[in-house]
């Protein structure tokens, strides 16, 4: 106990006692019941089907970049639903709490959420959606696609890759457990300073937020390192920089941004934790501290983070649009340059998040101009996409619908971004829901791209396409929801409605609040159709099975060269790259299905439980620190150190799959394309090409000779 805080403390449980379990709150109680029933059902099903061993061997301990990518995406989609439910609760509260005569329920004066609970919900919504939903989904997609697009067997550091995922999962676990044990931060996803200081937030909510952000931040930083190293060092022979797919360019740019910005967030929040735990005064207003320094540090990360998520989204659009326009991407070089330029400029714009701080006009002018400069490379991209569509044979498959929707949203989001880049306008609409509408508009660009990517690459990963009809319904309802919800929100912003309000004093805003609620109900319908799309597609996977490597017939980049679903070794032989759009080049030259004369042995890393254990230790460290159970935190930390040391002593030579075995597998695939995948496996193709089907290493197998 380094600083004073209210409430009891015991050695064993720290600040935790039975009263911290919010049984008195009916919303949380029923959520707990629902989650418990769901968990029992899942655990029961896995036990009933005897799948624990399979789950452990093939997924949880896997170092395969595709499986780790799928787990990232599953984590992100699950958290997106959680964040979405938070959004529904916020919109509903705001609609119920309009005017002084609006009734209150469940302890609230107006509406059904007391201010403190409302604060936690909007804080959780933002934190989850940005850090634990969109970021994992994008990292997952990059994980799956980047090695395939550059012709690599795996990521540069498979072990680090698994570790990054499990650290992210540990951070997510902290956010989720805060629902039922203690509470979550009420200080916004940005950690409004000095509200996050111990004097103003003496509970554990801010601690949950801060440790989740720090652990997750480490995971994302490591993931960025991995993607950069993979792209720089693992490209197949012949893949020069100018032959690299645009998605890889955007992944590279985004990862450089991630690597250079996430440590700033981790450091800023670590300093805040020192304030809260060690009694320092980095961000306290007084005693030499400076609360705006926190805001400054946060946005030094925060704005590059916007490009960290938007750049891969741009890359996704650059893959989908040429495929469904049936022509090459227009302006490849400018597209690649624009991706790097956006990443570069992203470092000089962060003050526009707090123009109203009171910096001098010269400073505001500099950041205003820098912010507008982002529009130039972004505009280049938009024109390139438009010229790709121009005179193309445009098909409106589900991925293309999402991509075109993203383009429309980029236009409105970009224009409102230009408005916010002007300090004069920014002073007027600062802290209003206009800002909220703008960044939701932009993050919806990312969301649309993610849904597009899931539809586009699903057959590559699982061997069968997602259902078109329900996919289109999901798209149209989601689009309608976006227009209705954020259109209303833009208007409310112009009318002066501040953000984060749990009570709305003006009844004249009610119609637009109803519009917002209608919009989110449309999102609810879209979510239903998205889940239904997954269900129907898995049920009818035999019908939607992909028999060729190219699921769309007009794809262009290298990942479409290998089978769908992708075998665990990715490519039977390392491809030699001849063209910028390698798969399109091979298809046009009649080389799409040429088989090699000779197969070489393939060396792959062994699965290991250490990353899962590291994640568990990181969770224990975070949970122990949140509740100031110092023995638990110390155990977690010692566990991490021991596991890292153990890994360095672990003789992990990996295993070698003989060329003859590869030939056999390739032949079986050629004889019955598509049969190996979806038909045999209830969850699709990734599991079909199991590493278990490869020979396990014998003593000395693949072991390098000692010098």
């Amino acid at each position: 106990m380094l600083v004073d805080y209210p409430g009891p403390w015991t050695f064993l449980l720290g600040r935790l006692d039975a009263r911290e379990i919010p049984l008195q709150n009916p919303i949380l109680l029923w959520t707990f019941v629902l989650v418990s029933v769901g968990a029992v059902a899942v655990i029961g099903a896995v036990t009933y089907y005897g799948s624990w061993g399979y789950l452990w061997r093939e997924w949880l301990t896997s170092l395969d970049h595709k499986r780790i990518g799928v787990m990232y995406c599953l984590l992100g989609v699950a958290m997106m639903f959680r964040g979405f439910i938070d959004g529904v609760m916020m919109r509903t509260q705001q609609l119920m709490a309009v005017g002084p005569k609006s009734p209150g329920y469940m302890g609230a004066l107006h509406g059904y959420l007391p201010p403190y609970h409302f604060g936690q919900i909007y804080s959780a919504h933002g934190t989850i959606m940005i850090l634990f939903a969109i970021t994992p989904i994008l990292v997952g997609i990059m994980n799956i696609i980047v090695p395939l697009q550059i012709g690599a067997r795996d990521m540069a550091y498979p072990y680090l890759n698994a570790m990054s995922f499990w650290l992210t999962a540990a951070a997510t676990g902290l956010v989720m457990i805060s629902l039922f044990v203690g509470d979550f931060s009420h200080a916004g996803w940005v950690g409004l300073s000095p509200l996050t200081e111990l004097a103003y937030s003496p509970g554990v909510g801010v601690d949950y937020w801060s440790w989740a952000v720090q652990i997750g931040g480490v995971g994302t930083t490591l993931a960025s390192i991995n993607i950069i190293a993979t792209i720089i060092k693992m490209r197949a022979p012949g893949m020069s920089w100018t032959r690299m797919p645009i998605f890889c360019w955007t992944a590279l740019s985004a990862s450089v941004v991630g690597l250079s910005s996430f440590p700033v967030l981790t450091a800023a929040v670590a300093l805040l934790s020192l304030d809260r735990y060690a009694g320092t005064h980095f961000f306290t207003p007084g005693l030499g501290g400076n609360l705006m320094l926190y805001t400054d540090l946060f946005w030094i990360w925060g704005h590059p983070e916007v490009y960290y998520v938007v750049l891969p989204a741009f890359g996704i659009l650059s893959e989908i649009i040429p495929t469904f326009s049936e022509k090459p991407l227009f302006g490849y070089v400018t597209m690649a340059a624009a991706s790097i330029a956006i990443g570069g400029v992203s470092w000089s714009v962060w003050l526009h998040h707090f123009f109203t701080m009171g910096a001098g006009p010269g400073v505001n002018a500099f950041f205003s101009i820098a912010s507008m400069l982002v529009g130039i490379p972004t505009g280049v991209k938009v024109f390139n996409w438009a010229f790709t569509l121009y005179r193309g044979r445009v098909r409106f498959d589900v991925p293309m619908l999402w991509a075109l929707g993203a383009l429309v949203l980029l236009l409105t989001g970009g224009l409102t971004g230009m408005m916010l880049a002007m300090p004069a306008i920014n002073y007027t609409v600062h802290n209003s829901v206009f800002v909220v509408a703008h960044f939701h508009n932009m993050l919806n660009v990312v969301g649309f791209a993610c849904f597009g990517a899931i539809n586009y690459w699903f057959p590559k990963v699982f061997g069968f396409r997602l259902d078109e009809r329900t996919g289109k319904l999901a798209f149209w309802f989601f689009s309608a929801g976006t227009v209705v919800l954020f259109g209303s929100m833009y208007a409310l912003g112009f009318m002066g409605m501040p953000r984060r309000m749990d009570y709305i004093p003006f009844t004249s805003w009610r119609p637009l609040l109803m519009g917002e609620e209608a919009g989110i109900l449309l999102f609810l319908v879209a979510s239903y159709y998205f889940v239904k799309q997954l269900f129907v597609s898995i049920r009818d996977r035999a019908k939607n099975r992909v028999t060729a490597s190219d699921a769309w017939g007009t794809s262009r980049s290298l990942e479409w060269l290998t089978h769908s679903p992708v075998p665990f070794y990715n490519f039977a032989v390392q491809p030699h790259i001849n063209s910028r759009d390698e798969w399109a080049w091979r298809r046009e030259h009649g080389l799409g299905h040429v088989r090699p004369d000779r197969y070489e042995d393939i060396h792959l890393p062994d699965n290991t439980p250490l990353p899962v254990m590291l994640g568990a230790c990181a969770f224990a460290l975070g949970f122990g620190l949140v509740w100031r159970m110092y023995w638990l935190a110390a155990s977690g930390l010692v566990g991490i150190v021991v596991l890292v040391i153990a890994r360095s002593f672990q003789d992990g030579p990996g295993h070698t799959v003989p060329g003859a075995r590869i030939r056999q597998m390739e032949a079986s695939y050629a004889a019955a394309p598509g049969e190996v995948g979806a038909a045999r496996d209830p969850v699709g193709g990734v599991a079909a090409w199991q590493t278990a089907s490869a020979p396990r290493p014998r003593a000395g197998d693949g072991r390098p000779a000692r010098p």
Partner: protein
Amino acid sequence: MSIETRDPLQHPEVQLARGRHYVGAYVVSLLLTGGPLWLVVRHLGTPRRLMIVVIASAAALTLVQGYFWLRLDFSRTQRWMTAALVLFIPLVVMTIGLTAWMFATLYARTMIPTLMHAPAFGH
């Protein structure tokens, strides 16, 4: 493109390691850290001069550790790491420089002028 080796001990980064470099860099690091600390603790110099000494020592420390510990040079295996550092420097300069600029104008324009002359700020 990359050098194929499965033995960690054969990695160029590991092969470049030299015991005397580690020890030498450690001793120099101690001097470059301890020296400025001693000057500050003893108040040997004006705040401005001390600040210059601390910054210069930190810069020298970065170079010493970068070269002798992290092996940042222009050899084939290490040039990407050196490039990463070189690319990183503008970011550090920009973030710290722009932050200093914005806070300088903030203090001049808002509530902090009195604080700027407080002992905590060295005035």
